[in-house]
């Protein structure tokens, strides 16, 4: 755009609110929060610096450590579960199925709903006194146990179940779109060679879907770090600390326990976590773009 320089003024002015948001809201508030994490702030912000004291307090807190462990277990199983189930559903729907659009609609609808709704639905299904467990027992299988939401060892898996139920449809949509974009020629060639269908999906289709699935997995992983609503709705962190997650730990200390310094230290750790998680991915994308540009 080099016909005139002058009209750029309008473009610059139009972007001013966004500059304000980017600089003041995003960078400014983040800097403020990080600064607070080095102070002894409790209910109100304080300007007494205490170095890394909040961080050492954070990492000696059993609740925080439990929350990190929980989010790791939840994250790995949730992302893997969504990717696996989503891919399987897409591959099945790709086989010229009757009622394909009805199936697609059914697999995706949970994704349209709030995490709060998903959490409450599954809390109800897994309610040991009245839910699936009670129903199966009344059929005669008296020893049937499905008490995940109230069982310390299993509560985190109840969250995974609800999360996969909500998120698998997204992966299915992305994978199916990718499969439809793959040329029929490859199919013909593979079929002539007598390669079984499942091998074609694993060895030919899956690698080509790699980038799209990686993007979906990355998006799901970002969601994991932010996981809050579904935990509040389904288990509220319990039983005990069994489903405590970092985002909830931070919210509780920020607004419930008036523990600003500790909460902002936790939030800073989360941000670092995101940077560490995203950086390699961005780097690979950047290098690939560069390679493309050079070719």
């Amino acid at each position, binding site marked *: 755009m080099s016909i005139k320089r002058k009209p750029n003024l309008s473009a610059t002015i139009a972007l001013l609110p966004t500059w304000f948001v980017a600089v003041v809201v995003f960078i400014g508030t983040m800097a403020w929060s990080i600064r607070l994490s080095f102070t002894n702030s409790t209910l109100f912000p304080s300007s007494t610096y205490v170095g890394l004291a909040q961080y050492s307090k954070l990492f000696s807190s059993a609740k925080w450590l439990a929350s990190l462990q929980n989010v790791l277990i939840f994250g790995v199983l949730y992302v893997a579960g969504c990717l696996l189930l989503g891919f399987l559903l897409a591959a099945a729907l790709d086989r010229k199925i009757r009622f394909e659009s009805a199936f697609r609609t059914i*697999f995706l609808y949970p994704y349209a709903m709030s995490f709060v709704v998903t959490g409450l639905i599954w809390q109800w299904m897994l309610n040991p006194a009245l839910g699936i467990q009670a129903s199966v027992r009344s059929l005669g299988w008296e020893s049937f146990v499905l008490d995940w939401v109230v069982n310390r060892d299993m509560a985190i898996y109840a969250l995974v179940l609800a999360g996969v139920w909500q998120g698998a449809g997204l992966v299915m949509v992305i994978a199916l779109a990718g499969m439809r974009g793959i040329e029929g020629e490859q199919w013909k060639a593979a079929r002539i060679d007598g390669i079984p269908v499942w091998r074609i999906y694993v060895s030919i289709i899956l690698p080509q879907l790699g980038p799209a699935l990686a993007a979906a997995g990355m998006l799901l992983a970002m969601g994991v770090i932010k996981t809050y609503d579904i935990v509040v709705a389904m288990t509220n962190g319990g039983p005990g600390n069994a489903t405590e997650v970092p985002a909830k730990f931070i919210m509780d200390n*920020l607004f419930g326990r008036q523990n600003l310094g500790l909460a902002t230290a936790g939030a800073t750790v989360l941000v670092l976590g995101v940077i560490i998680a995203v950086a390699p991915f961005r780097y690979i994308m950047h290098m690939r773009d560069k390679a493309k540009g050079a070719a």
Partner: protein
Amino acid sequence: MARLHPNGPKPAQITAGRIGLYAFLVVAALFFLLPLYTMVVTSLKSMPEIRLGQIFALPATLDFSAWATAWSGACMGTVCVGIRSGFWNSVAITLPSVALSVFIGAVNGYALSLWRPRGANLLFGLLMAGGLIPYQIFLYPMVRAMANIDLYNSLAGIILVHVIFGLPLVTLLFRNYFLSVPEELCKAARVDGAGFWRIFFEIMLPIAVPMVVVVSMLQFTGIWNDFLLGLVFAGRDNLPMTVQLNNIVNTTMGERTYNVNMAATILTAIVPLAIYFLSGRWFVRGIAAGAVKG
């Protein structure tokens, strides 16, 4: 991707593989539908019937009273006014938030892709970084700042917050969309004497209508389904439906009325579900765009 047969395509046969395929799909469909089914039947049962512990059984009689209670009489703590007010709060929050964020995002995307004023790349980079970072790090300073300008706990405040946090994704989608518009179109209009805003309103916005629909869909469901921001910024009088729903279900005193809880849950899910079922392909395009490009 037709399967190749030696003597040309044959009609599909019923094989063990096909049966297994359908069996898998049907079982999966049951897994996805069962929660919705149990919610609906629970909401239509009476409490004595629910206490029998037959979660999958059909209700003995159709009883819509739980729905009426959920809508206008369910209790949040000690206040018993139903989820109705939350519904209207969600409407009041969502509509202006979507309209504003889509408009600002479209202007941003257009300016960043076709005009590229000084610093455009830096701004875009900052915005994308802001979009990746968990909200928790912004919250406390934002609460203080909003309180300082008297917008904390107000409808305008929560709308502003949604617009702010929506900007990264909305800007990204419009920027990518406008990058695919030929630059010549913009250049030609400028030669004809049209300025920044005229080109935007008369050429670019009409071209971008499909993207406006997709982004609106994405933003609408995202903001309607939000819990965290509504909880922190909306204030008691403007709490969105999702927050009120959680208050009804998880802070009830005395006996839990599961039928009312499930009716309230369905009522909260019904708007995004209606959008999903009615807009179908647009919704799917929206989430796919948001997922792949985000």
